[in-house]
Structure formats: structure tokens, C-alpha cells
């Protein structure tokens, strides 16, 4: 065996229950186990994984129990506003945002986090889709209002602007790296967000209902 500068790869932490569909991998650059989330997904870890996402006009909330080091990230946008209402109580418009925020907080609490220890950081909400100019700002306004109502303070943020962002979040320490991406070369971000925007605006499949 020769000398090796390669970081010893620890065993991959167990996946959080219910999040088996999330893409998890060994990140060679950072030398950490990572999880990459797409629009509409979220991931929570009690084992200090790096959570990665790329944001255009979508917003990602990174939330963590700062005492226990249990944290996670969501990635969402609101459906396009219907003409008659722009009220934050409108269930049709806010359902995905409310769901993404509540789901993230619930999963952290289920893993042993406590509400009074929660630390919130916000990213995204850029203006990158030409035909949907106010989408990013609207997502930002929604998430700020949501957190205010829930009594949660925002500790750090990097929001709005015109460039997509790649966000690396360390779920145990709460440390974040944000890289601004070149707008023109990132058609993948735009394409994914367009598809997601269409899905949240027109979807009829959400909200499974069962009567016993």
C-alpha cells in the first residue's frame, strides 16, 4: 500500500425513513456523504450529511436543531397565482409551500429535534424564468410570511437576484456554501423548474384521501 491522499470514506449513514427515493452519493470534492434534492423534494439527516440543490426561482429552506445537529432542506415553489386571489390563506396557492415547510419541520422533530432549537436559513427566489417574472419574489414573500406566523426567525439568507444558485448545506453544523451559477449555461435549472411549475400548477394527483 502506497501513501494515499484520498480521504478515507466512512460508511454511508442510514437513510432517513421515508426518504429512500432521494439521490444520495459520496461527494469526492468535499469528501462527504451527500444527498441531492430536486424541485418538490426534501431531505433530513441526523448524521451530518451534505444536502445539495440548485435553485432558480424556487426557494430552499434549510432548517436545523442547532443543539442536536439534526437538519434538512426543502425545495419548492408556489403554483402560479390565479387572477382572483393573492391571499396567503388561499389553500390552492399555498398548499405546496405550506406542505414543504411543515413536512421539513415535522421530519426534524420526528428525528428528535426540538422546535425551540430550530435555526432557519433561506436561499433562492431568483428571477430566472423570463415568462414568470414575479415567481421568485413571490416564493420569498410566502416563506418569510410563513416563518413569521410560525414564530421562526431567519438567521441567514441569500435570496432574489437574477442568477441561479447551487447550495451546499451541512445538516449537522448548519454551515452553507452558496455558488452563483452562470445564468445562460444553466438551461437544466430552467427546464426542471418549468416542469415543476407546470406540475404544481396543474396537478390533480396530490392529496390522497382515504375514508375508512
Amino acid at each position: 500500500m502506497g501513501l494515499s491522499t484520498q480521504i478515507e470514506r466512512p460508511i454511508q449513514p442510514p437513510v432517513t425513513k421515508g426518504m429512500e427515493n432521494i439521490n444520495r452519493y459520496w461527494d469526492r470534492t468535499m469528501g462527504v456523504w451527500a444527498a441531492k434534492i430536486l424541485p418538490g423534494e426534501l431531505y433530513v439527516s441526523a448524521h451530518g450529511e451534505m444536502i445539495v440543490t440548485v435553485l432558480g426561482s424556487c426557494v430552499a429552506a434549510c432548517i436545523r436543531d442547532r443543539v442536536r445537529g439534526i437538519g434538512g432542506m426543502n425545495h419548492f415553489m408556489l403554483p402560479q397565482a390565479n387572477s382572483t386571489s393573492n391571499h396567503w390563506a388561499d389553500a390552492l396557492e399555498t398548499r405546496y409551500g405550506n406542505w414543504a415547510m411543515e413536512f421539513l419541520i415535522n421530519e426534524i422533530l420526528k428525528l428528535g429535534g426540538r422546535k425551540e432549537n430550530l435555526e432557519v436559513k433561506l436561499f433562492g427566489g431568483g428571477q430566472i424564468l423570463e415568462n414568470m417574472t414575479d415567481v421568485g419574489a413571490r416564493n420569498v414573500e410566502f416563506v418569510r410570511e410563513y416563518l413569521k406566523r410560525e414564530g421562526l426567525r431567519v438567521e441567514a439568507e441569500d435570496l432574489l437576484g437574477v442568477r441561479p444558485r447551487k447550495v451546499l448545506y451541512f445538516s449537522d453544523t448548519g454551515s452553507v456554501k452558496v455558488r452563483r451559477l452562470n445564468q445562460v449555461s444553466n438551461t437544466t435549472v430552467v427546464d426542471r423548474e418549468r416542469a415543476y411549475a407546470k406540475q404544481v400548477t396543474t396537478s390533480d394527483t396530490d392529496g390522497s384521501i382515504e375514508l375508512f
Partner: protein
Amino acid sequence: MSKILAVDDSASMRQMISFTLKSAGFDVVEAADGIEGLNQAQQHKCDLVLSDVNMPNMDGITMTRELRGLPDYKYTPILMLTTESGGDKKSEGKNAGATGWIVKPFKPDQLLNTIKKVLG
């Protein structure tokens, strides 16, 4: 006019549910956890209960079980509104006496149609 008890620890969810129900002509009573829910249920005679599952102090499943022990709420429809789509929690809810299980995110129309269905 039917009166609905909406129990959720999230202020945003309560606001959204109340708005949806009031727009459809229902009377709404709110509570932020299971204990508050039980108190409200005893103070107001509600025709239907909508409850979140994961809440501090008393969760929605425990509250449902408690409600079923009260003579006034033995047969009242209780719908769970939750982010939990897993079968385990759902069976727990069913065993506790819940009438139905709605997974978030839901559309307002889906919620209202289900309410109308169970109110008969």
C-alpha cells in the same frame, strides 16, 4: 350551519384551513394541539373535526381516541390532515377511530368535497 373544529399546530395551516372552510360557509373553531382541541370540542358542539397528526403536547391520534370516549363525539366525523402518507400511522389513526385520512398537500376542493361526503 355546520361547525368544524380545525386542530393544527401550524398557524399557517390553521389560517389556510379556516379560510377554505369559512369561504364555503362553515363555522370554524381552531385549536393548536390535541389538548386545546379536546377543550374546544367540549365547549362547542362541533359537527366535524379536522386534525393534524404530529403536534406537541397531544398528537392528533391520541386526541381522536379521547374524543371517541366522549358521548358527544362518539360518531362525529374526524378527518386527519397530515403529511404522513405511511401505512403505519394511517392504521393507528383508523384504530383510534378516525373517519378518514387526507395527505397534504391537498386542494381546497378535495377537502370540501370530502367534508360534504362525510357530513352526508
